[in-house]
């Protein structure tokens, strides 16, 4: 079973349904003891980083994630869920993240590019990551975000070009994160999600 951490932000049903379409069972829960028994955890995230991380800390899920990060059980952060794996974010102020990955989340520059970065952009695969297995370089995934993690860290397995190189898929040990929405990224997203779900077995 795949546990989707419900810490009070946004709609988690789309992720649950995408997992069901991939042929796995998922449950949405805020019950830490139930989540602790899952084969893999998904840390979703929408909205503002500060709000999301405050709610996550208040939910009691933080110690569980710390434990999983250390014990090597699979965790996938999606969108702001990926961003929260980092040390801090500068979205509307300065907020501490979970700190599993080194680096910070910063806004896209005020150049000629439109912000938010919304739409289908290509994954440039640079690392050997289990969840990118079978995903072709330059496949399109669906992104919606105004802040990003730099791609210059060894944890970055794929990035996307949007004026800068923004981390699109990150991996460190059993921790995974995707900036795009796999549940909204058609066949490419389904493949990546399936690859992650396989790790739960």
């Amino acid at each position, binding site marked *: 079973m795949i546990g989707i951490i419900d810490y009070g932000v946004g709609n988690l049903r789309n992720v649950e349904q995408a997992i069901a379409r991939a042929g796995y069972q998922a449950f949405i829960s805020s019950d830490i003891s139930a989540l602790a028994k899952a084969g893999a955890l998904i840390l979703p995230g929408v909205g503002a980083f500060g709000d999301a991380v405050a709610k996550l800390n208040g939910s009691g899920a933080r110690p569980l994630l710390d434990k999983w990060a250390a014990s090597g059980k699979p965790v996938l952060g999606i969108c702001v869920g990926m961003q929260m794996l980092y040390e801090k974010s500068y979205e509307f102020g300065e907020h501490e993240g979970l700190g599993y990955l080194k680096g910070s989340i910063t806004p896209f520059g005020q150049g000629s590019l439109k912000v938010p970065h919304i739409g289908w952009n290509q994954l440039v695969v640079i690392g050997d990551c289990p969840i990118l297995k079978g995903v072709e370089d330059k496949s399109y995934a669906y992104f919606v975000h105004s802040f990003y993690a730099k791609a210059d860290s060894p944890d970055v397995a794929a990035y996307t070009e949007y004026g800068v190189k923004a981390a699109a898929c990150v991996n460190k040990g059993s921790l995974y994160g995707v900036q795009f929405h796999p549940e909204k990224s*058609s066949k490419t997203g389904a493949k990546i999600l399936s690859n992650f779900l396989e790790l739960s077995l």
Partner: protein
Amino acid sequence: MLAKRIIPCLDVDQTRVVKGRKFMDVKDVADPVELAKRYSEQGADELVFYDITASVQNRSIFYGTLRSVADAIDIPFMIGGGIKTVEDFRIALLSGADKVSINSGAVQNPQVISEAKTRFGSQCIVLSIDAKRNGKSWDVYIKAGQENTGLDAIEWAMRGADLGAGELCINSIDMDGVKEGYDLELIATLCERLSIPVIASGGAGKMEHFAQAFRVGADAALAASVFHYDEIKIQELKAYLKDQGFEIR
């Protein structure tokens, strides 16, 4: 590179997709779930659902319909129609929408944009404007195109972006349903002035019209009837646009 998006729009009356011409003369077209799946499989980049009835008692039926749509497709979609409060945003997002479009509600209470931004983030807020040409400028209309607010469309769009809208959807009332092409001057003006993505809406009749909208700067192009009635096939449109040199998924 970021791809230009093709967005079929589905005007939904409770449980059915309908399409009007200049907002009037509504005709029944199809089942939203069926149509959404078909578009998704054909390569649509995103979908829009407008609740065109927007009466309170029918809205729960509409959201039930959308929940079935959300379960069936794996591309993003937007909900619009009758959105007024932060609570409306919340309900729309919970029914599976990735984005919520606000139109009349934002004109009546602009602060709802900044409240929704704080709560859910700019990425899910689409400011939708129904604009009608008035000499050298465009007026903002509300209530499904029935009431002229006297607001200047360009100024209102810029204010909306400042308040926290993450995208702008511009619908030309003059061109809506006429199939003679988007209002390119309106789109070009908005694209010059705004730093958020612009979705062109109203007027698509031929494949060339999509290319025209992208050429003047639109990030996405929305259309309804040409897709519902199979006058333009999404795969063929995307192949055509790729040939024209646009970045297309």
